[in-house]
């Protein structure tokens, strides 16, 4: 039977999809923390280093120009030390045709002994020019009265300077642009995020616009300097040149690595689909057997109810209920189960009706078997395989319904799902920015999962229901 199943092309294709997706889910469950959603995904602070709204890294193979990669350099000790001056030097080779999207400077575990040290950042460009991006960091809290030396700062949360929105860096970049011959106001530099263009470009016109710059390729040397007491230290220093491409799946408007969110969506989708389909099928199976076997008023009542549930437009009701009960995974599953059993009941009942009249049931009745015994021993076994196929078929429906609810903003906010990623994409201008990676991948993952189950069902159906065997 398994061989027959795998011999059909749809069965094989469906199985391959589902096995792959299950393996990915197992991998995710084993490697991701369970509170990934609240701790990382919905925490914008965690993603501040990442480039915002950039396509995946492999996009470079499909476009005639080269987009810069994401560049991160961590330093734990200074490159040079002289007396009271410490220097950290980061070399960055820039060889792309487009500009990076930003520069972020971060450090943590700052220890100082007397006054607040003066920390500055400058860039030496390949054309020999130097840009000082800031010459002091005003964001270090000075010693409080009564605090003992050494003063330690930025232990829990690192100090982060996002240069494209930092007033001092913008002012300095504006001055440097003036030197290059491009006259801009600081407001223009800030609003159009021109800083990376000014730092990494040479001007081709004097208009204040991103198009006025062409990339200046070569080696850039970023130099961080700290002047203070000789004992002053920085535990970890990080320089990020944000790329214009990132990772396997790109990033969204908060800089979140979509590959991670999409990976986390695998087990969630399979879990919701599986649990909903299992519960709904169990209910449908039980009610179908009761309805078909007992008959009479009970049958009429169950079938009327199932018939209405099966034909009423359900989405409005699903939306209303989740909205009323609250956006949580449990409620979504509950609502989908409560509204999802009707189809199975109707089909199972019609199968039971034909089994009921068969001779072995008559024989069992004559032998004095109880209803319960007959339902369990004679009705259930022949119905079970088909009910299993129906369960497989119910999974894609449940996955799509969850995605629909999520897309309306009714998903569980503590768990990233594909539907929610799509919703955020739709609400935050993915279409207007042509951020195809943000829309196509989650959507196609939903569709491929659903197709996997539908294909398996198509291959399963003729096996479990010989009447339907195709020619």
């Amino acid at each position, binding site marked *: 039977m398994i061989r027959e199943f795998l011999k059909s092309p749809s069965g094989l294709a469906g199985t391959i999809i589902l096995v792959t997706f299950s393996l990915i889910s197992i991998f995710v469950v084993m490697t991701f923390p369970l509170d990934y959603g609240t701790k990382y995904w919905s925490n914008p602070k965690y993603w501040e280093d990442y480039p915002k709204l950039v396509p995946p890294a492999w996009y470079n193979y499909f476009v005639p120009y080269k987009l810069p990669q994401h560049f991160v350099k961590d330093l734990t000790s200074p490159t040079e030390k002289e007396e009271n001056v410490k220097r950290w030097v980061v070399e960055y080779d820039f060889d792309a045709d487009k500009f990076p999207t930003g520069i972020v400077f971060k450090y943590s575990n700052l220890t100082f002994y007397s006054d607040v040290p003066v920390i500055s950042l400058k860039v030496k460009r390949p054309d020999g020019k130097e840009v000082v991006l800031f010459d002091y960091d005003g964001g270090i809290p000075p010693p409080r009265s009564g605090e003992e030396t050494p003063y330690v700062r930025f232990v829990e949360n690192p100090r982060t300077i996002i240069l494209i929105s930092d007033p001092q860096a913008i002012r300095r970049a504006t001055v440097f642009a003036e030197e290059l011959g491009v006259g801009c106001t600081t407001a223009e530099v800030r609003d159009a995020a021109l800083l990376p263009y000014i730092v990494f470009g040479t001007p081709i016109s004097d208009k204040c616009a991103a198009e006025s710059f062409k990339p200046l390729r070569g080696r850039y040397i970023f130099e961080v300097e700290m002047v203070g007491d000789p004992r002053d230290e920085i535990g970890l220093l990080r320089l990020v040149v944000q790329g214009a491409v990132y990772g396997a799946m790109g990033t969204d408007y908060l800089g979140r690595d979509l590959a991670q969110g999409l990976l986390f969506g695998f087990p969630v989708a399979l879990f919701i689909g599986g649990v909903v389909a299992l519960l709904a099928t169990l209910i449908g199976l039980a009610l179908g057997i009761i309805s078909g076997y007992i008959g009479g008023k009970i049958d009429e009542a169950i079938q009327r109810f199932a018939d209405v549930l099966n034909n009423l437009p359900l989405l409005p009701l699903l939306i209303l209920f989740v909205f009323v009960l609250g956006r949580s995974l449990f409620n979504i599953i509950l609502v989908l189960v409560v509204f999802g059993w009707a189809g199975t009941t109707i089909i199972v009942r019609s199968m039971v009706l034909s089994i009921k009249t068969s001779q072995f049931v008559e024989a069992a009745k004559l032998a004095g078997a109880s209803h319960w015994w007959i339902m369990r021993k004679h009705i259930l076994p022949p119905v079970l395989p088909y009910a299993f196929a129906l369960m497989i078929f119910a999974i894609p429906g449940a996955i799509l319904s969850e995605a629909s609810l999520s897309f309306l903003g009714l998903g569980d906010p503590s768990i990233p799902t594909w539907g929610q990623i799509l919703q955020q994409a739709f609400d935050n201008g*993915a279409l207007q920015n042509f951020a195809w990676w943000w829309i196509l991948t989650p959507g196609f993952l939903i569709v491929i999962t659903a197709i996997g189950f539908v294909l398996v069902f198509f291959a399963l159906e003729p096996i479990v229901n010989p009447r339907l065997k195709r020619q």
Partner: protein
Amino acid sequence: MASLAKTLLVKAITLVVVLIGVLVLLAVIMGATGLSDKMLNSILTSEVQEYKQQLLRQGKDIAAIEKAVEEFKKERAAALGIDRPWYERMPQLIYRLLVLDLGNSRTLQSSWGSNKIADLILDRLPNTIILTTTGILFTALVGIWMGLYIGANIGSRADRVVSILSAASYALPLWFVGLVLILVLAYGPKILWGVQIFPPGGMVSTPPPKEPLAYVLDVMWHLSLPLFASFIVFFGSWAYTTRNIVFSVSQEDFVNFARAKGLPEDMVRNRYILRPSLPPILTSLILSLAGSISGYIITERVFNWPGMGSLFYSAITALDEPVIFALTYVFTLVYIIARFILEILYVLLDPRIRLS
């Protein structure tokens, strides 16, 4: 004939019971979960707040204001019915709906500023009919036509293509296909080459064209992407369902017998295969058309189409209870009427029912 009338009457009564059942169920859910109270309370609080601000601006003294506000609050609570428990309040609402008095919305308004729910529906329903109903009708007719053809040619290449398409229609959410079409056909060409081939959403351009003909063409231009999306998604399933029905009928003994009798193939197809296939196909078509009145909630949102689906969604998010009730009622009513029409059609189409 008398028995026939009786059957129809029983069906009609069952359907009315279903209609009341749905409303009662909704009322119990909204009441028992406390949502109804929550909605009324939020309205009451905002009304009282507004009244208080108004008094404060008039500059009366604090004690008098407090007293007036307290009285106003009591009065409004009584008017809203919040001083009574939900199971006393709801029957009235259900009764009014049953006699087709849809009432007034609390916050939502029609495009000409009316608070009447009947006006809200009149405002949105035509838009939904333009989008959803025509979409379903067009797709279904093409699909059924294709299915009838394939049902007679099982195993052909067209049959295989339709089988694959039908698998796709179980797995493709309409709204996602809409998103992809908007991305690829509306924003793609605009951003990459600067040409607007298809509009990214909405029902008419802003400002709308003055001339009637230009207006119609403009609406059709906006309709093209959603129609295309619904065709992609639903065509396969219509064709495949029809094919299965036709195929299973054509395997029946009476068809073989008709052929064995030597009846011409045309006659076998039209009388012995198509006629018994018709009731189930008609059932799906009529129920889909009835369901289309509720609109595509998500797809209307994706295409920014001001139809019934988006109205229902705004009613939920704005916690506009009367609108939620009225719309659920209207959707169910339309479904019930469709079911009744079907019962009559069965009688007309199926001699077994007519003569029994």
